[in-house]
């Protein structure tokens, strides 16, 4: 049985690895695009005028108020009817990035607002303009403060990128389903996949933790350790 599982594992490996590649692609691209989108939205909410702020609030509420699955369906199945056609991977990347941007915006907004107002006053009184003050004083602090929340967002994306299988993206979970359907060995296949997700989560948490420690500065955000128990 054990030898048999070993053989089965080795046979499944190429398919699983190619699925894993797509999972990592979805995770890294959407967390990165979502990060920059999140910064723009958060800054718009905190510092924007009424129109900019209204737009950002509208976007964030729209995304956070609707299921990710529905957003993916609209992008992949809905948009072709108005002539916008994406491949499955494109649709999934777009959907996850737009979705993550809204959530990251809210983490960042909280972090930006937790930076004391005196920091902005001090930057402005040196002669920095608003943009310089944000760039050199507010964001470096806010980003450090938001690392623990951001770590959660990363792990969330890693795991929920599996939803992309519903729009035919052959990521890790989709590959597993494919193998299981052919071999009927559902338990073993999904146990393997669960272990892969678990290992990825542990490794990425550890990496983010180390980055947080390297960037940590006495007195800011106290680089709280996000342990697996918190996830």
């Amino acid at each position, binding site marked *: 049985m054990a030898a048999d599982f070993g053989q089965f594992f080795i046979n499944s490996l190429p398919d699983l690895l190619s699925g894993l590649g797509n999972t990592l692609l979805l995770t890294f691209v959407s967390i990165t695009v979502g990060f920059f989108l999140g910064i723009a939205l958060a800054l718009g909410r905190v510092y924007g005028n009424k129109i900019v702020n209204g737009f950002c609030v509208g976007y964030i509420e729209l995304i956070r108020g609707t299921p990710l699955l529905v957003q993916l369906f609209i992008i992949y199945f809905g948009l072709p009817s108005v002539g916008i056609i994406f491949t499955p991977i494109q649709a999934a990347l777009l959907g996850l990035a737009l979705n993550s941007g809204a959530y990251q915006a809210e983490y960042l907004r909280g972090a930006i607002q937790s930076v004391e107002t005196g920091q902005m006053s001090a930057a402005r009184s040196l002669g*920095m303009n608003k943009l310089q003050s944000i760039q050199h004083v507010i964001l470096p602090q806010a980003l450090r403060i938001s690392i623990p929340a951001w770590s959660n967002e990363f792990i969330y994306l890693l795991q929920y990128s599996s939803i992309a299988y519903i729009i035919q993206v052959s990521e890790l979970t989709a590959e597993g389903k494919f193998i299981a359907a052919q071999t009927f060995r559902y338990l073993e296949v999904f146990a393997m996949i669960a272990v892969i997700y678990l290992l990825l989560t542990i490794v990425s948490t550890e990496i983010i933790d180390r980055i947080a420690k390297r960037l940590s500065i006495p007195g800011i955000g106290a680089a709280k350790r996000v342990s697996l128990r918190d996830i």
Partner: protein
Amino acid sequence: MEDSSMTMLEVKDVYKSYGDVAILKGVSFTMEKDETKVIIGPSGTGKSTLLRCINQLSPPDKGHVWLNGVEITNPKSNINKMREKIGFVFQDFNLFNHLTALRNVSIGLEKVKKIEKEAAHKRAMQELSRVGLEAQAGQYPAQLSGGQKQRVGIARALAMDPDLILFDEPTSALDPELIGDVLDVMKSLCGKVAMLVVTHEMGFARNVADEIIFMEGGIIVEQGSPKEMFTNAKMARTREFLGRIGALYGDQEGG
């Protein structure tokens, strides 16, 4: 543009309200180059608001402020350029939490004055040693005592080569034994840069100020040299305030 006979700072008829509450009700005064003026008065009188109106952190509702003949309150003035010339030292320090003492002092030089990093650090180090903190250059604000933080705050203002430094109750958040170091640094600046100081330190006001301005209820009640104010104040209210605050803070030491 800078002519030596010109008034360095002119504040004229400044009004400021927050909502329905009128804080400043027409404040006017002038300062000459390198002069030290101390503003005293009860809490909630608009002293800090006045400082923030001068560098436009809180723009006045009405009135004008000129620095070296250029009107700061004119919307066409480049306020960022003007603020380079006006240092601000805060009651609660407001050091940049994510930067070392050295970078706190050099960041204005690097990002605002666009001075090369190495030269900026060198200048910042000079300012830190001027306030006695070269040994703390690599420390973050959270690792400094209150008195050290405030001296970094002063060094940060000095590095920009300002014409004027505004001090907003610079020692009010400090433990009593730390106040002396900060006041010593401020005293050492007398006559080298103009200072407008809001403080309750009567010793400092008495021994260091060229002029004392007594404010209450959003207006200047009386102003004069320390000698006039302490021994021969014209207004009963000034005498009463100085008597009370003198008993509270002591008016002989610390100056």
